[in-house]
């Protein structure tokens, strides 16, 4: 198998390198990729959408359908992870023995035969494999996380004028919650952002995107033609396109954030939502 693989790889690589001889030279301004459509985007974006960041304008406006279905792909990936890991776990019974830790004193209580303590601020439920998080890491991350989230919101909101947008901001926002799960433990993160909330936010993000498109349809223009929003937003059609991009980017940000956290929670705990695999 290894030798067959090596032969396949070498032959394919040789063919590709042979084909690369016909490619345009690196950084050639007259290369085919830069000649037909992209000059239109670069020269007309400002007057057509009033968004200086061409990448954002192309992403959410000119190629709006593509991005909408990319968001749907991300949503389905989150749902697939949930179905693969979580659904089959439902049949597994909850462990008979539960552990609770008194937050102030650090005393751990073991409850057998399925007894529970009602949720309160005094006790937090922990796993059998629980180890106390390191104080320096815990404190450092607690200081860092709000700033990470603030930066994520800046990246989403400022996607029109600087590198950024829904995808990048959503990933940073998701990373901040994943950082919480790594530095504390998974239960802490799930307590902040529950599984149900993640599932709802995933769908809400896609819904905001598709809903904006459908709203344009209702306002008698094409699907995802944001200039239709001018009536609703009381601005001229070009500014409406810019605002429409922002609305859509917020939807993308929410969907990406929720999916990243959801996938992390499911994969890191193999669907158990407990510490470790």
């Amino acid at each position, binding site marked *: 198998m290894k030798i067959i*693989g090596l032969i396949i790889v070498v032959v394919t*690589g040789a063919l590709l390198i042979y084909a*690369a001889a016909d490619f345009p030279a690196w950084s050639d*301004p007259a290369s085919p990729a830069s000649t037909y459509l992209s000059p239109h985007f670069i020269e007309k974006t400002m007057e057509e959408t009033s968004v*200086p960041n061409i990448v954002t304008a192309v992403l959410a406006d000119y190629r709006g359908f593509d991005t909408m279905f990319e968001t749907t792909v991300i949503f389905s*990936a*989150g749902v697939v992870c949930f179905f693969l890991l979580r659904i089959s776990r439902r049949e597994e019974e909850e462990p008979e023995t539960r552990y609770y830790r008194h937050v102030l004193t650090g005393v751990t209580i073991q409850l057998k035969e399925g007894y529970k303590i009602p949720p309160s601020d005094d006790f937090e439920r922990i796993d059998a494999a629980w180890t106390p998080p390191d104080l320096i890491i815990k404190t450092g991350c607690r200081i860092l996380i709000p700033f990470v989230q603030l930066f994520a919101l800046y990246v989403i909101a400022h996607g029109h004028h600087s590198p950024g947008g829904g*995808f990048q901001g959503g990933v940073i926002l998701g990373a901040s919650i994943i950082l919480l799960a790594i530095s504390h433990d998974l239960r802490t993160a799930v307590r902040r952002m529950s599984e149900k909330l993640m599932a709802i936010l995933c769908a809400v993000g896609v819904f905001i995107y598709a809903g904006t498109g459908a709203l344009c349809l209702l306002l008698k223009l094409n699907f995802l033609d944001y200039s239709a929003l001018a009536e609703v937003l009381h601005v001229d059609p070009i500014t409406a396109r810019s605002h429409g991009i922002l609305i859509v980017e917020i939807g993308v940000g929410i969907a990406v954030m929720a999916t990243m956290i959801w996938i992390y929670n499911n994969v890191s705990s193999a669907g158990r939502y407990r510490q470790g695999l």
Partner: protein
Amino acid sequence: MTDLISTVIAKYNYWIYITLMMIGLYAMIAKNNLVKKIVGMNIFQTAIILFYVSIGVKKGATIPILEHGHGPDAHHVVHAVDYINPLPHVLMLTAIVVGVATLGVALALAIRIYNNYNTLEEDEILAQIREK
């Protein structure tokens, strides 16, 4: 000789991506461990992302964000040669995030396989399937 050097300088970036891509392809074909196959898939994907980003480069151009878009300095004549091609960036922007999401699905599948067969080695899994 100078001809050869100029060809190498103009094309070596493609060769690097092809090499990277073939490393990924080899890992996907020949590696026995499923996680290593997933790593190979990611290397393959990275090669394609690098390839696309390099397509967008133009000599002497800057990032595709218009300078002085709004405000008093706003000038409305924009020349396409001053900005790099935004299209590959758009495609790869979504591809990176979708890649992470599909990586999550791949890992979830690997976890399920491990739960069923207690191994991630392909030959051991196949042997177990044949026994049944």
